């Protein structure tokens, strides 16, 4: 029995807009094993974004339970959720969301600064360098975001997500701002990280991109409509080194 990374039961989210109640999630159940590569699909308005916010511990469900890596995170307050995000989730966003005028290595170091790890500057820097190497960015560690291409920026973001060795990578439309060739490259990185044992949850509305995952769930009207294995998986490892094992250093205390 593989360990469960995500265990969701009866997840409900209701937004109150004045008098009107909007039911964004209407009782979602979802189980994700360690080492899975899951794509969440769905049109806009389907509740996909709400699910992503709750999965990412950015928001709390109105009802239902959410166990992330065995921890019930559905009742945590702001600061507790910040700690969980730091330790257990690696975010990759559509618009990269790197700090401007900050070098790649410094961007990657940032989660380590906020984590209560007590690491020395040297140790943080070493971990950041290692994470950048894993996404194939050695040699660009000191480049600022503005000096990097979109694909390279997204690689920095992936390195930043990796550096704390989180329980899962949560990628929200990671290829939305990239051309198709670069998109393939980025998906290749996710695939190779997944080969190395990382759990990856990918939020996307593009079927092509979702085909890189091993399992696809489709959300519609606040419920999971389909949950199926990917039959013809697209594998893309163009320009990527063979799967890299995780860093030897233990990132989590």
């Amino acid at each position, binding site marked *: 029995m593989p360990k469960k990374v995500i265990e969701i039961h009866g997840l409900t989210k209701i937004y109150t807009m004045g008098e009107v109640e909007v039911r964004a999630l209407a009782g979602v159940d979802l189980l994700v094993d360690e080492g899975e590569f899951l794509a969440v699909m769905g049109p806009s308005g389907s509740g996909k974004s709400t699910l992503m*916010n709750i999965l*990412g511990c*950015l*928001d709390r469900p109105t009802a239902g339970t959410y166990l992330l890596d065995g921890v019930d995170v559905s009742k945590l307050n*702001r*600061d507790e959720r*910040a*700690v969980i*995000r*730091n*330790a257990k989730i690696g*975010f990759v*966003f559509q618009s990269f*969301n*790197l*700090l*401007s*005028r*900050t070098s790649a290595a410094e961007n990657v170091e*940032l*989660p380590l*600064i*906020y*984590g*209560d*790890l*007590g690491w020395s500057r040297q140790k943080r820097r070493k971990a950041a360098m290692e994470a950048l190497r894993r996404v194939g960015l050695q040699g660009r560690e000191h480049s600022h975001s503005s000096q990097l291409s979109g694909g390279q920026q997204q690689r920095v973001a992936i390195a*930043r997500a990796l550096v*704390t060795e989180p329980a899962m990578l949560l990628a929200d439309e990671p290829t939305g701002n990239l051309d198709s060739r670069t998109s393939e490259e980025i998906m290749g990185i996710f695939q190779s990280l997944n080969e190395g044992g990382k759990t990856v949850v990918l939020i996307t509305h593009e079927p092509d991109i979702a085909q890189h995952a091993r399992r696809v769930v489709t959300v519609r009207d606040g419920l999971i409509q389909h949950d199926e294995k990917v039959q013809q998986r697209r594998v893309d490892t163009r320009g990527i080194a063979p799967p890299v094992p995780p860093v030897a250093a233990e990132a989590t205390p």
Partner: protein
Amino acid sequence: MKSSLLRISNITFVGLRAIARNKMRSFLTALGIIIGVGCVIAVVAIGNGATKSVEATINSLGTNYIMLFPGAATSSGARMFTGNSTLTADDADAIKAECPAVAYVAPTVRATAQIVAGELNWGTSIQGVSVDYPLIRSWNVSDGTFFTDQDVKSASKVCVLGTTVADNLFPDGQAVGQIVRIKNVPFKVDGVLEKKGGNMMGQDQDDTVIAPYTTVMKRLSGKTKIDMLQISAVSADQVQEAMNEIDGVLRQRHRIPPKGDPDFQMRSQEEIAQAQTQQTGILRMLLLCIAGISLLVGGIGIMNIMLVSVTERTREIGIRMAIGAKGRHVLLQFLFEAVTLAIVGGALGIAAGIGASLAVKYFLQWPIVVTPTSVALSFGVAAFVGIFFGYYPARKAAKLDPIDALRYE
């Protein structure tokens, strides 16, 4: 503990970098504080210098100095000095003869006139005094001699010039022995006084002519009464006793009962100094209020820019929160930024204030005194302003919702 210190240092660094990125804006933001602190430092330095100098001037009167004016001290009813002096030269003689605690008495009368020497002329004040005057003021002649008691008794037409007058009337420096005309009366110049310099009330003490009071009364002012007595007690600790004795003698001579309002008033050097200190104290409070207001305005400037900065960096705040920054991390980051702005502004302000004080000293020859207290105080106030006005924007940043912040364009 170690890790939280480490984190604080990291967050400080983050804040500092934001300042370095927006150099011009950071400088303009800090400018309010720079000006505020600079004003405080300069005002206090100049104020302290003025106080010191006034103190020095008053102390130069000597600690046993007493002034005696005609007229009533402000008292119940509306009795004020009407201009009719009741003091006479005989009062002065009586005080000197009958008061053992009194060392010297100089009756003083004042006049102003245009003084002519050859083709040059100079308008100044003329003080008629007795031979005790240089002893009371410890002010000697640097050239020639002071006039004698005989000159006073016979109302001789002799005088002693202050250096300013001597320089203006006799540019070649040969004043002693020359004749000057005051209101067409020829006076022989017996001597020139030592240079005393200006006092802090802006008066040039050397711009004066000293003559026997008898001569001034008779030849120049036509007054029969004395304007003021300048008195010296035997020693500093006998000042009060001397004042009591003088009070007794004058009441007797002017037939004023012990409980009645006297027709004269006395001021010791100590009282003059106190009054003066009070005056400069009020002035300084006023200036410090102005400086305080400019610091307040500076603080509002910091708050304003910090609010703009928080809005501008909403997305950055969202990113930081998404990857694990707690509310207080964000709060500290922005608070450190504001405090750093204020402290750097404060440091620059101190430098600017000292610079301005030195410029004032150099160009206006005003004395200045920069005290470590004022430097420490304004630095502390600057830091406080940073915390006070930085807190609100920082809290606003810390309370942002990460989802909204990430979506912010």
